[in-house]
């Protein structure tokens, strides 16, 4: 196990360094093609060369390699990595420490993801299990139709509708009925509110959860179905165990194994969804940070955030794999 973890971590470090370099290269290429981003600082007023130069120096964008398209800018890369090794992630175009921006954004995004995961685990898995247990009956059809529709409605469209319907229409009704500070009013908000940071994230988090819930539900259902049909469940029944025990102890536990893996991957997809979600709800999380960074060509921000995302993604998957071994004793990582 220990050796396996070390091997995986080494692989992750290798992957991460390639990802980092690719990001660096792509961002440099974007600057080489699109022009130096510091130009935007001055609006469309004429800027003296020296002013431009001073600003570029300030943001470490004065390397001449940024002028020749295709240059990998090795120097900049090694400088940045050296800086990173001291846990210094540089500053963004507003001279704000990127480390601080990320530190502020992480709890927000994590909150969303926690809610999303809870939605998947609670609603997704439950719906899948219920459908499997009632295969061919009304609940099963309901769940299957429901998941089909959530698959067919693009995420951003759903988010728009959720924002308008739950945040505005229903939310306003609650606010009229119970006042603006009431629990329901705070939950049904159309945008993130710094006053109620957790409550205003509940609906967006659920909406993001609905984004990937179909996969979880369907997997839970097929996995349950497979196990319900399995020999060991038949054995459990032959042992005269109660239905609830057969379902929960002997079927659900086994069925969760593949679901856990998929939740790991789905969280990665949700990161993409969070770019749309955070933009729409004005949530100061990692997705918005990255997207705004890309829009302004703020290299340092983009590289830091995406690298973080991929670290989180890889670590999540490692944890999922290890958890897999806990859930399924047949798996031994050597």
């Amino acid at each position, binding site marked *: 196990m220990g050796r396996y973890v070390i091997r995986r971590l080494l692989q992750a470090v290798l992957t991460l360094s390639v990802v980092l370099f690719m990001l660096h290269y792509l961002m440099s290429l974007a600057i080489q093609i699109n022009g130096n981003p510091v130009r935007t600082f001055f609006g469309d007023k004429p800027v003296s060369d020296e002013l431009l130069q001073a600003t570029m120096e300030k943001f470490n964008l004065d390397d001449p390699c940024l002028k020749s398209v295709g240059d990998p800018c090795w120097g900049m890369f090694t400088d940045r990595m050296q800086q990173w090794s001291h846990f210094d992630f540089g500053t963004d175009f507003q001279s704000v420490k990127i480390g601080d921006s990320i530190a502020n954004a992480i709890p927000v995004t994590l909150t969303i993801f926690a809610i999303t995961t809870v939605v998947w685990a609670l609603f997704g898995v439950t719906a899948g299990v219920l459908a499997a247990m009632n295969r061919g009956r009304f609940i099963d059809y309901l769940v299957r139709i429901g998941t089909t529709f959530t698959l067919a409605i693009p995420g951003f469209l759903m988010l728009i509708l959720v924002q308008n319907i739950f945040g505005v229409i229903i939310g306003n009704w609650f606010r009229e009925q119970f006042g603006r500070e009431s629990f329901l009013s705070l939950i049904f908000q159309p945008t993130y509110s710094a006053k109620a940071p957790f409550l205003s994230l509940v609906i967006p988090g659920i909406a993001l959860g609905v984004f990937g819930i179909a996969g979880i539900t369907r997997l839970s259902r097929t996995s349950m179905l497979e196990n319900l049909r399995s020999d060991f469940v038949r054995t459990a029944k032959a*042992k*005269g165990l109660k239905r609830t025990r057969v379902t929960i102890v002997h079927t659900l536990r086994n069925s969760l194994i593949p679901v856990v893996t998929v939740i790991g991957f789905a969280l990665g997809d949700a990161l993409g969804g969070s770019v749309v979600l955070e933009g729409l709800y004005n949530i100061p999380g990692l997705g918005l940070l990255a997207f705004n960074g890309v829009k302004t060509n703020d290299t340092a921000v983009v590289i830091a955030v995406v690298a973080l995302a991929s670290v989180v993604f890889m670590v999540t998957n490692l944890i999922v794999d290890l958890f897999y071994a806990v859930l399924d004793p047949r798996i031994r990582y050597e």
Partner: protein
Amino acid sequence: MADVKFQSEILPELDPSAPLLDVRDLQVEFRTRDGIAKAVNGANFTVNRGETLAIVGESGSGKSVTSQAIMGILETPPAKIAGGEVLFHGVDLLTLSKERKRRVRANHVAMVFQDALSALNPVYTVGFQLAELFRKHRGMSKAEAKKKSLELLDLVKIPAAAQRINEYPHQFSGGMRQRVMIAMALALDPDLLIADEPTTALDVTVQAQIMRLLAEIQAERQMGLILITHDLGVVADVADKISVMYAGRIVEQAPVLDLFGKPAHPYTKALLRSIPRLDTKGQKLEVIEGLPPVLTNIPPGCAFAARCHYAQDVCRTDIPLLETVAADRAAACHFSAEVINGE
């Protein structure tokens, strides 16, 4: 031991004088896309205390479905019990409520499955799966249950049971796993044990050990034992009587020696010919030509007619009934007399 159980509140209406298990005209259907498949089409047999019945037949002949119907663990739907009775000491198990059926399982009737690797839950230790029975049915504490489980593992002759009890099924060899299955089935002292192809997945040497173990335990506890198999050779030594199943029906029923000596049904005869035997070395093994009928579309008349050397026109129109052909034996063939007498 049996007397104690007769006062158990699970089945107060038991009739101790009735046979341990009496299956009468059991019919099981499956609803499939292609229509209704008659998996069991009127099965009749009895098992008494201390007796071993072997049910023999090809896969798909309905033996496993019969055993699961007795256990009450058929999935309904798609399965449906279309008729018949399963009398356990005179009580029809089929008419019991779900809850009572559940409590009959393991307490009175237990089952050993074919592939122990898949029949044991891979994610729990062997100890957990054994102890579960004592804890849930007998309300024992963890420690007590573990002690009882260890005793059981010793009983089925698993070496170093104290260590192995904390291992997972995949860490056991095939034979050892099957012993665990048997231990589990015996845990609550059932009156009837059904072993569904208990040795199919095992090596020949291990097969013998497991059969011996089953026979020993059965003798010691005076249980009824139903052995389900497609392999006549396996049961020759342990069974008292044999029922042969074909396409959902019992086609022949006889004490083991009679059946081996003089089969009364052409299908039995063909089965016997396809067993490799030490004394007939060098002789070509026979293969039964053709396929068993599709269960959704069983032809009128004898289901075996299409593959039968003896078949006449009558076989294709009239279903032969299971009729007594000699003392203690019955066969369902229009020409059983000819068959029993050879040619």
